[in-house]
């Protein structure tokens, strides 16, 4: 295999101790080294995998075939995987459709429907090798054409897919120079962005260097559909996974069954090795009801265990509580061009009056970790630790006085609880803290669905941001000038430049050093109060094996079995 030109340098860094092993594995796999090989290069034993070419863990000895798994989650619609907006939709789909790459519960990305990926030295050209022997449910074999068709679809601005917020697919578009009726710049797909080289090879010619192609291909909206696809998926689901949809009743149930015959009557062969469960049933339970449903034995596993129900979960005999650290977070962000937040002294005062550590402790107790207002998490490989800011109420008062608010200021933060009531609890804690500095913060709670209508419009809002495997990913979506999800309207050419430099740097110590500038600019601009990185908990009965908590809350059920 041809090694990537940067690989020897990575290895040097590993041996000279400038890079730790975890980082080495992450970056080596990014450069196209199979995860198993990367673990070996780092002198670590890889987590047992079925084989170095499969993205799944090896079957446990004694794994039992058969049975059905009953999962409690909100049963959602299955329209178009590219425009999914709930994790639940993807959970129901993941056993049917599959990704090009799979981000494992260990946050390491492995090839799935592609066998390997290889970037050029400048990270602008990526070659994807399509896996051979992958069969669609209609009996056809997966080809490079199919993969290219999907990638082109994801990068089409007219589709309305959130995939366009991922660097890879954004880099497959260009600005036309026109503006739409609302004054926003119009994008169109790059002409020669996705190139089919032969029946097994796809080449991406990106408009700018992107580090996260492999990660982006495993994000939750990038499930690969057959080119004959017409939404809704639930009417004619053709995938490559081991299960097919038998029944979908939104808000009630979703029943998946092992697929044995293709639609043209041949035996179906699954490329990914052994699969154990005969059926997977998703039963509709609202988020707050799932633990109770498991307690009375109505389901075997649930999508998510809310932190406030941990005590209840502990009281269920034999139940397994599993958790994982993530880069999921809450951003209480202020719009820098709206009064009174256009005065940086006001923003700094709010930040100074807040005590992130206390909020985290109040909401998640000993779980999760404290965040420091620059939206890069300690689990990100390029995280540069900046010293924690200390709470300074007197300083905050002083800043407010200078800004002309010596009698205090009335502010209002809007929160949607999209990720659970803990968001509201965090905002209320913030309210109580900033009161001491003379800031009267009102917390406005709006229904979750309502929040997504206004999230980019409110001057002060608390938005939940999902896990992203690399730190630069969220920064470039949320804080770069003019980015479509830039909800704070933050705009600083110096920040943009520093971020672009960091994004184009593969060398980790250099990259980390560059992140110092990026993080410092963002933190000192006092755009967000970001109290914590939240943990994720899941719950399963003692009979369920192989169900793991995932940092992006992806339910990966292909290798789960029941005893």
């Amino acid at each position, binding site marked *: 295999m041809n090694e990537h030109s940067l690989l020897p340098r990575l290895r040097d860094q590993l041996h000279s101790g400038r890079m730790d092993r975890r980082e080495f594995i992450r970056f080596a796999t990014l450069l196209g080294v199979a995860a198993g090989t990367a673990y070996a290069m780092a002198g670590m034993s890889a987590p047992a995998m079925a084989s170095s070419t499969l993205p799944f863990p090896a079957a446990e000895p004694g794994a039992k075939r058969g049975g059905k798994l*009953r999962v409690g989650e909100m049963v959602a*619609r299955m*329209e178009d995987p590219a*425009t*999914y*907006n*709930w994790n639940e939709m993807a959970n129901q789909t993941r056993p049917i459709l599959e990704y090009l790459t799979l981000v494992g519960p260990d946050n390491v990305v492995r090839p799935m429907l592609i066998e390997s990926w290889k970037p050029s030295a400048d990270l602008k050209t990526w070659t994807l090798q399509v896996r051979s022997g992958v069969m669609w449910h209609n009996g056809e074999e997966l080809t490079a054409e199919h993969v290219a068709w999907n990638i082109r679809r994801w990068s089409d*601005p*007219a589709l*309305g*897919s*959130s995939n*366009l*917020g991922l660097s890879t697919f954004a880099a497959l578009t260009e600005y036309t120079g026109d503006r*739409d*009726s*609302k004054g*926003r710049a*119009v*994008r169109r797909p790059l002409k020669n962005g996705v190139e089919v080289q032969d029946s097994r090879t796809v080449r991406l010619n990106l408009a700018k260097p992107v580090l996260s192609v492999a990660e982006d291909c495993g994000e939750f909206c990038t499930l690969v559909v057959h080119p004959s696809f017409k939404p*809704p998926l*639930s009417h004619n689901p053709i995938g490559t996974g081991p299960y097919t949809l038998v029944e979908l*009743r*939104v*808000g*009630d*149930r979703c029943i998946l069954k092992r697929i044995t015959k293709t639609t043209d009557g041949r035996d179906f062969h699954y490329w990914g090795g052994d699969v154990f469960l005969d059926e997977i*049933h998703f*039963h*509709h*339970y*609202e988020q707050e*009801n799932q633990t*109770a*449903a498991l*307690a*009375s*034995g*109505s*389901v075997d596993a649930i999508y998510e265990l809310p932190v406030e129900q941990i005590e209840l979960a502990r009281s269920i005999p034999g139940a397994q509580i599993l958790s994982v650290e993530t880069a999921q977070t809450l951003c209480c962000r202020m719009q820098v061009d709206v009064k009174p937040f256009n005065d940086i002294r006001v923003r700094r005062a709010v930040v100074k009056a807040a005590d992130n550590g206390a909020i985290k402790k109040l909401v998640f107790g000993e779980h999760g970790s404290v965040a420091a207002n620059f939206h890069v998490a300690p689990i990100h490989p390029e995280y540069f630790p900046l010293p924690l800011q200390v709470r300074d109420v007197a300083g905050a008062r002083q800043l407010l006085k200078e800004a002309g608010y010596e009698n205090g200021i009335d502010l209002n933060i809007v929160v949607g609880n999209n990720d659970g009531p803990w968001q509201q609890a965090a905002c209320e804690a913030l309210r109580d803290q900033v009161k001491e500095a003379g800031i009267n913060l009102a917390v406005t709670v709006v*229904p979750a*669905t*309502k*929040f*997504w*209508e206004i*999230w*980019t419009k409110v001057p002060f809002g608390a938005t939940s941001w999902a896990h992203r495997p690399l730190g630069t990913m969220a920064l470039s979506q949320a804080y770069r000038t003019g980015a*479509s*999800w830039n909800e704070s309207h933050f705009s600083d050419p110096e920040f943009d430049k520093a971020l672009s430099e960091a994004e184009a740097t593969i060398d980790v110590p250099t990259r980390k050093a560059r992140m110092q500038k990026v993080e410092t600019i963002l933190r000192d601009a006092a755009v967000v109060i970001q109290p914590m990185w939240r943990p994720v908990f899941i719950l399963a009965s003692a009979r369920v094996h192989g169900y793991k908590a995932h940092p992006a809350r992806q339910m990966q059920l292909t290798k789960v079995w029941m005893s």
Partner: protein
Amino acid sequence: MGNLIVRRVTQMLLIMLTVSLLLFAIFDSDQFREKAAVAELGGFGVATLSADDYHEWLEKKGLNEPFLARYGRWLESVLHGDMGQSIEKDIAVSVLLKESLTNTGILAFFVFWIMIPVSLTLGVLAGMNTGSPLDRVISIVAVLTTSIPQIATAVLLTVILALGLGWVPTKSAMADGWSFRGLVLPLLTLLLYDIGYLVRMTRAAMTEVMASQYIRTAVLKGLPYRRVILRHALRNALIVPVTLIFLELNGLLSQVVVVEVFFQYAGFGRMLFDAANFGDLQVLQAATLVAVCVAVGSQLLSDAAYVFLNPRVRFT
């Protein structure tokens, strides 16, 4: 009587027309369109779309049509018996409505089947002997059950019967098919409140009747006590409770929203709740028509019962 029916039905049709027009008008706003877009594409997806592509999307979903044209088309298809398609659940509204009404119907049947005999008996017993220990016990229990909000009763019953004793499932989703055990918690929650309420009303009516002069006369005439109660007192004492029972038909439709949502019972209340949350217009419209129908229908029934029980009353 015939006159009354004609009048009530005309009233019903007019209300239906007004309410449906109002609902359409409320949902014909940019805000609602954006809500529908967010529900389908997600907040992040909608933020990614350019204004022109957003417009195109609306066009594709038929959300951009002029208001009256949409309303006219909807009205026409409803008159043809087609209530449209649920956007959220992707099935015909008529199917959804039928299933949810059946489920709520089952629940309502058991509620009435237990509530009527139990509360009338208890209410009459208490009212017969006002001030007796039996009356005190019945009254206190009734006040207690009606003073706890249903949502609290629901939590309490779940903790005791499902999590504590493990007799019934915590939720009534009935994933493995219909089961009476699954129905117990929503049923008890509704019953506790409704029985308490009806007992208090029956007791009050009975007390009033027992204090009236014709009962005293009947007793003094030396009629057997049994006969005084059954022949003379009951008929008059039941006027109020019977009217209430019919109105309860209508009241139940709003009570089931809380109970069905909490216990995840797939009935009319939950359907209404989901549809309102999602902005599923056609489902909401159909549900409203049903609600108006039940409201006016129960009014009509209660009028009829009133005439039957109280010969002095005539609706002309």
